[in-house]
C-alpha cells in the first residue's frame, strides 16, 4: 500500500485506488497532491482488503482486469458488506463495453471512467464525489 496526503485533518477525504498498474497509481498520486486528499493505493483486491475490511473510504476507484480477482467481482463482494453497501465507487478500466458498464451500474457505481483517463477527469470526479459531495447530489 502507498499513501499520499497533504496536510491532513479528520475531515480530509479518503480516496482508495485499486489497480495493478503502477503507472496508474502514480498518476493518481500526482493528482492527489493537487486536490488535498488522503490517497491510499493498492495493487490488488486482496491487498486493498487490509484497509477496506475496516474502513469506508469517501471514494473508491476500482480497475477491472487485474491478475487475481477482477474489480467487478470484488465490488460484488464489497457490496455484501454493510460497511460498503453504498461506498461511492468509480470503475476505471480499459474495458469500455456496454456489458461491463451495465454490471457496474447494477452494483451501484457512481461513474465508469474508461482508460485512458485525463487527469482532469480524475480530479473532477474526486472533487465531485469526495471533496464537495453535496455538489454531486
Amino acid at each position, binding site marked *: 500500500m502507498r499513501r499520499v496526503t497533504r496536510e491532513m485533518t479528520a475531515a480530509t477525504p479518503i480516496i482508495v485506488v485499486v489497480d495493478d498498474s503502477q503507472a496508474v497509481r502514480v498518476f493518481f498520486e500526482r493528482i492527489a497532491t493537487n486536490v488535498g486528499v488522503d490517497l491510499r493505493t493498492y495493487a490488488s483486491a486482496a491487498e486493498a482488503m487490509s484497509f477496506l475490511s475496516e474502513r469506508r473510504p469517501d471514494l473508491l476507484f476500482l480497475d477491472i*482486469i487485474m491478475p487475481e480477482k477482477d474489480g467487478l*467481482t470484488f465490488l460484488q463482494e464489497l457490496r455484501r458488506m454493510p460497511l460498503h453497501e453504498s461506498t461511492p465507487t468509480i470503475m476505471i478500466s480499459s474495458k469500455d*463495453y456496454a456489458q*461491463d458498464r451495465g454490471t457496474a451500474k447494477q452494483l451501484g457505481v457512481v461513474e465508469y471512467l474508461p*482508460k*485512458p483517463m485525463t487527469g482532469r477527469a480524475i480530479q473532477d470526479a474526486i472533487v465531485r464525489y469526495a471533496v464537495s459531495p453535496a455538489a454531486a447530489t
Partner: protein
Amino acid sequence: MSRPYIRFWGVRGSYAAPHATHLGVGGNTSCVEIRAGDHLLVCDGGTGIIPLGEALMHSPLREMMVVFTHYHWDHICGLPFFPPAFSPAWKIRFFGPGETAADIEQRLSNQMKAPYFPVEIETWMASIEYVSPGSGTLQHGPMTIRFHNVHHPGVTYGYRVNVAGKSIVYMSDNEVAYLKTSIERRADEFDDDEHHILASIEREERLSEIAAVKGADILIHDAQYTPCDYERKRGWGHSCYVDTVNFAIDAGVKSLYLYHHDPTYDDAKVDEIHRDCERLILERGATLECVVAREGMVVEI
C-alpha cells in the same frame, strides 16, 4: 497410455455456421478437448460439446472437468444437449467466472429455464460439482490449470494448462491491444505530461497481457476479424488477426492456433487470413508456427 492431445470440437465464434462453404474449417462454436490419459478437460461448451458428448458416451471415461471462459451463448449453448450431463454414470466438475460456486451454477442453469428450454438442470442425472474459485489455480489429474482475466465484455477468463511438461493457453475471446488503440484514437485529449504517463500505462498493460501467455507451447487465441472488419467492430471484444499474430510473436509462443473464426467467413476467407498471418510472421523474421484451428483437428501435445 497414449500421449496427451488436444482436439478441436468447435472453432467458430459468435454463432454456429453449418454452411457447406464453411465446413472445411467447421461450423460448431467453441469447444476444445484436452486429454491426458484418463483425464479429460473440456474448454467451453459451445455447440462443439454436443458431438464430444455423443463420442464420450461410447468411451470408458466417466469423469471430466469443463471450464468456461465466460457465459456468452456461443460458449454454453451446447450444454443443454450434452449427453453425459443427463447420465447418472458421469461425474462432471464445472468451473468458470463467478464469485462463488453458486454463481457458476446460476449462470449455467439460467439458459435452461422456461421459456427458453423445456427441462431445467434438475434433469441432469450426472454427479455435478461447481468448483469454487480459489487462488487462481485448479488441478485436474496431471493438469495444472491457471486462469486470468482477459479483455472481453463481462468477466472473461483465459486458461493456461500445464501438462506433460507443455504449456497450452486457451483464450477464445480476447480483444488484444485495446488500450493502445484507445490512446491513439483519443490522443488530442491529453497534454505532454499525460502522454508520458499513458505510455507507461500502455506498456504495463501490454506486459501484463504477454505475461499470461509468455513462452506457451500452444496458444489457442481469438483471431476473429480482418483489419477491415475490425475497424467496424472494434469494441466487440474480439481481435484482429494481425494483433493476434503480433501478440503471439511478442510473447514468444511456439505455435499459434487461429480460433473463434467469424461465422460469416467461409473456408476460402479463413485460408486467406492464414496466408496473411504467414506473411506477417515472415516479415517479422519470427519462428512462430501458425495454424488454422479446424473442427476435428487433433494436436499431439
